[in-house]
């Protein structure tokens, strides 16, 4: 125990005196979490609170084009920028290249007549004979010019689909409105009263979003709840850069040679290193969570709500730190140069993070990747953190994840032991 204590003190002193190392281990992860959360939060804000600029060219002179513009405005998702329909054809393209807007729609000149014709044909079919083959054919052959939606290639598919969905709803509302008007007129021989029209078209049953929570909490998870735990894990595993290269340097140093001739086992040094770096990773996580909880609201980011089960949070953090330290030591044992350990360490953590669902959510991954992700310790750690942070779970709810993470850690330790023996280091 005396040797272990002396080694812990030695490692802590070396660590504290390495200012660059401290910056790498504490400042950089905090910066990473703040940047990622800010970026993700702005994406969330863009979709939910901020408005996407939409360049709109209404070439229709009739009432339906104007109605569609109003319906789009009503969605609340867009900041509409009118485009001059009398301008040159490539005006939209020029303005989009100038990034005035990343998305644009063109309402064709015959939009009103097409909508009205279609509504009249549907109303006729509904009132006369819905099964009439003539009326059916008449409806299906009625040609309508499509709405054109231009998008900038930098716009990701998920954004594009959201916008397309919103535009579809607006068109649907428009079409519904026209059909209701025609039907009402055909039945009552007068125009539909505005309040009834509103009730028919917009009196939809509301959808209330409820996040599933083990505590029954209805707090909607924000960007911080999603991103802070995920990127904290990433930062903890990035200790591979510091510890991995320390291991490589120590292996090739004279001090290691001397340690091998001393009466104590080198395994004591590795055990001590694990204790020191578990402490380091624990402090990293504590610092990041504290910043998320206390500082984020002051810098315009959503607050990170800590889980109710703090002992559970501590245990998940300690096991994650143990796994991260074990992985770094393993990389340090097998690599021969710091270039190897830094390169392999960084890229392997990125791969494990991608596999583990940190970069793309696990549910969005293909089926075969959902099986492979189980080998990534970051996956189990993320699942455990999400269980606590997002689902309001307790230790018992994430115990399986913790045990899986501990199992992977033990495998890494055995691999390290094999490497130490193979390389005649113990």
């Amino acid at each position, binding site marked *: 125990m005396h040797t272990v204590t*002396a080694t812990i003190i030695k490692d802590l002193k070396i660590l504290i005196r390495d200012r660059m190392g401290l910056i790498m281990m504490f400042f950089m992860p905090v910066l990473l979490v703040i940047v990622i959360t800010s970026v993700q939060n702005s994406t969330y804000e863009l979709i939910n609170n901020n408005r996407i600029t939409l360049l709109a060219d209404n070439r229709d002179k009739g009432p339906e084009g104007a109605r569609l513009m109003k319906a789009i405005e009503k969605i609340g998702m867009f900041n509409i920028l009118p485009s001059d329909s009398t301008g040159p054809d490539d005006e939209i393209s020029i303005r989009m290249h100038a990034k005035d807007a990343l998305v644009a729609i063109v309402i064709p000149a015959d939009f009103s007549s097409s909508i009205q014709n279609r509504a009249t044909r549907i109303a006729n079919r509904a009132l006369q004979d819905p099964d009439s083959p003539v009326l059916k054919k008449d409806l299906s052959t009625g040609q309508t010019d499509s709405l054109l939606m231009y998008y900038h290639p930098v716009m990701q598919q998920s954004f594009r689909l959201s916008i397309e969905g919103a535009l579809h709803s607006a068109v649907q509302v428009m079409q519904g409105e026209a059909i209701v008007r025609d039907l009402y007129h055909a039945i009552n021989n007068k125009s539909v009263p505005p309040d009834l029209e509103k009730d028919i078209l917009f009196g939809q049953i509301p959808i209330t979003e409820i996040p599933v929570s083990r505590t029954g909490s209805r707090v909607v998870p924000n960007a911080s709840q999603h991103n802070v735990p995920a990127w904290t894990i990433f930062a903890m595993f990035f200790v591979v850069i510091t510890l991995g290269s320390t291991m490589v340097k120590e292996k090739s140093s004279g*001090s290691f040679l001397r340690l091998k001739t001393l009466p104590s086992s080198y395994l004591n040094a590795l055990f001590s290193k694990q204790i020191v770096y578990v402490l380091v990773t624990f402090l990293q996580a504590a610092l990041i969570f504290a910043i998320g909880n206390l500082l984020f609201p002051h810098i315009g980011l959503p607050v990170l709500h800590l889980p109710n089960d703090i002992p559970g949070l501590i245990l998940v953090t300690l096991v994650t730190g143990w796994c991260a330290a074990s992985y770094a030591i393993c990389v340090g044992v097998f690599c021969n140069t710091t270039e190897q350990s830094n390169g392999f360490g960084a890229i392997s953590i990125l791969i494990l993070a991608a596999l583990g669902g940190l970069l793309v959510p696990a549910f969005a991954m293909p089926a075969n990747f959902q099986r492979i992700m189980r080998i990534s310790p970051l996956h189990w750690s993320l699942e455990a953190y999400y269980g606590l942070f997002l689902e309001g779970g307790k230790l018992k709810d994430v115990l399986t994840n913790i045990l899986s993470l501990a199992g992977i850690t033990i495998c890494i330790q055995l691999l390290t032991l094999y490497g130490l023996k193979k390389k005649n280091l113990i």
Partner: protein
Amino acid sequence: MSIPAIAIRSLSFSYPKQEVIQFKDLNLEVEDGERFGLFGPNGAGKTTLMNLMTGLLQYKKGSIRLLSHEISDHAKSVNKLFGFVPQDFSFYPELSPDENLSFFGAWYGLDQHRIKKRTAELLAILGLGEVGNRMVHTFSGGMKRRVNLAIGVMHQPRVLFLDEPTVGVDVQSRHAIIHYLKELNQQGTTLIYTSHQLEEAEGLCEKIALMDEGKIVVHDRLGVLLEQHRQEGLEGLFLGLTGKHFRD
């Protein structure tokens, strides 16, 4: 008859996955309390032999006994009997000499009281008392060599292996180191020393062995060898027995 400090019998060794046999049937004995020098050109096998004697390399054929304990099946308890001062600086430059000695003292199995006492003693003897709390990376080469030596003798070993302990140091540091080594020897520590500083070696070693191509060429008292080979100094003896051609 006293137990030899080192007794090597019929030692054969080659590095794994290498065809070249480093040692074949090598025999060597170093008496307890002796100041013994192991010399030879580069590649002669001195460092390999030193590493085998300190347990850094494993051998399969033959025997190396340190104070009658077989090195190959030694456990860590045998390591308490010897100290090692490698040619490379073997300490943590980010720590002070005081902190280095505390750390290595713990690894030697010394208790806190003894660590403190030995640290104060060694720092004073080796002229590091006033810089005991300064980081070693700020030291000169000579001071670093003295720290390197202090760590190797922290636990007062019975046998001390020294691999080029004075390389790259000034005259003052060399003098202090050699003087201290002689003092240690007078207190009963066997010195097993290797160096290319032949003049220094002449003043330190009582008995020497000259190695070349994995073999012991000669092994006797220095005075006897000089007389036998009609040489005035170790350098002449060295060149006479190993030739003048480059080995690396």
